[in-house]
């Protein structure tokens, strides 16, 4: 299978650090900001981000995990329903600035569903989107990230695979691979 490296572990670390500095610039002391990791893979990025943010700024930000499975627009349009993941949000987002965090932005449909799911926890003051990899020119919805690590041009036949060392991979790395045709 053909694989092309998009980001290696050093580049990912630099990007996460950059994200932290951008967030500090834009959100000051984070007194009205909360973070939501979009299931299933956003929480992995978010956990790393909040740990680094605490290390850099000394601030512990409120964060949670949001699952949008029950808000997807492809229910009954695919052969089987997707398996839902845990939603864990111990706070209301009413009047808060919310930063949604995910690993890859592709069609924008998951983000749309996530914003729909998010509203169940209140009406946010502002919502921002933070993405490690932005797959350009593939969007079905008018959704654009406020923070991105790297923009890539990909084909429908390709897949962006995000590997984390603490999930059993050799190193943190992001690859573009060809989708399995079988």
């Amino acid at each position, binding site marked *: 299978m053909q694989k092309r490296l998009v980001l290696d572990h050093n580049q990912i670390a630099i990007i996460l650090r950059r994200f932290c500095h951008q967030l500090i610039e834009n959100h000051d002391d984070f007194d009205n900001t909360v973070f939501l990791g979009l299931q299933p893979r956003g929480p992995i990025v978010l956990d790393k981000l909040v740990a680094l943010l605490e290390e850099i700024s000394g601030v512990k930000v409120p964060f949670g995990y949001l*699952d949008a499975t029950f*808000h997807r627009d492809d229910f*009954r349009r*695919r052969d*089987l*329903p997707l398996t*839902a993941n845990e939603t864990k949000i111990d706070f209301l987002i009413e009047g808060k600035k919310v930063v949604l965090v995910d690993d890859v932005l592709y069609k924008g449909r998951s983000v749309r569903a996530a914003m729909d*799911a998010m509203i*169940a*926890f209140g009406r946010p003051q502002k919502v921002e989107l933070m993405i490690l990899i932005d797959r350009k020119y593939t969007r079905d919805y008018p959704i654009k990230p406020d923070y991105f690590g790297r923009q890539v041009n990909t084909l429908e036949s390709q897949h962006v695979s995000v590997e984390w060392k603490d999930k059993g991979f050799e190193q943190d790395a992001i690859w573009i691979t060809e989708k399995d045709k079988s």
Partner: protein
Amino acid sequence: MSQLSTRHLLGIKDITEQDIHTIFDTAQNFKEVINRPIKKVPSLRDITIANIFFENSTRTKLSFELAEKRLSADVVNFSSSNSSVKKGETLIDTVNNILSMKVDMVVMRHSSPGAAHFLSRNINANIVNAGDGTHEHPTQALLDAYSIKEKLGDVAGKKVAIIGDILHSRVALSNIFCLQKLGAEVMVCGPITLLPKHIASLGVKVEYDVQKALEWCDVANVLRIQLERQQIKYFPSLREYSLYYGINRKMLDRLDKEIVIMHPGPINRGVELNSDVADSEHSIILHQVENGVAVRMAVLYLLAGAK
């Protein structure tokens, strides 16, 4: 992906252990949903569900209706007391008429065992059995087992005593199938006249002394005396039944362990359960009601989701 091995939920006997785990995992997520400030998700917004109840029901019907509305389904309700069934219409005709109105799923309660199976063979919609005579009540068994899992961490290896009117209970049969599939040990306990003759052939223990059953079990699922199904007298009086089989606080205090008390409702207070037990810290009866909505949401979601 989440998939059930069936497109109907007719009985626990017909589904696999994996199906039960899939329903529990999905119900866990729906339990979080129904505790949100906004308790509704849009998953079933293009689905119409008919709740067809040929027998009286309060909580099951309410629980299904709430589950359907939380999933954003359109709901039509039908009960036999004010329908054409009274005018002699057959079950198939009634349901086909309702399906002609483009209904996707049918939740049905009927007094005849096998009614849901019959329907599933004759109409093209997902069928959920909400109780068929004395046969099965699958969603009740699922929510009971889910509540045990939630309270005790697991169902496997637990000892569950089903106490009361086993003979007329569809809850008992579905519970036996469900608990055994999940690896629990099951005992039935009641007066000899209210236990089916060959119940032991299902692999359950049989006990006639309620105190001994309580000493044996981790969970006591206490059933109602179903007077409406009893054509003859199975015991001399309710007072005598209560004296021998009613569970009170003193009986629990005599045990050297904590047990969990369950009841599918409605409770006949002072008959099978005293208030000092039904309202005690041992009781998870109200949790069962809450879990009922989550489990029914999971069942409807999984059945509707498969093409």
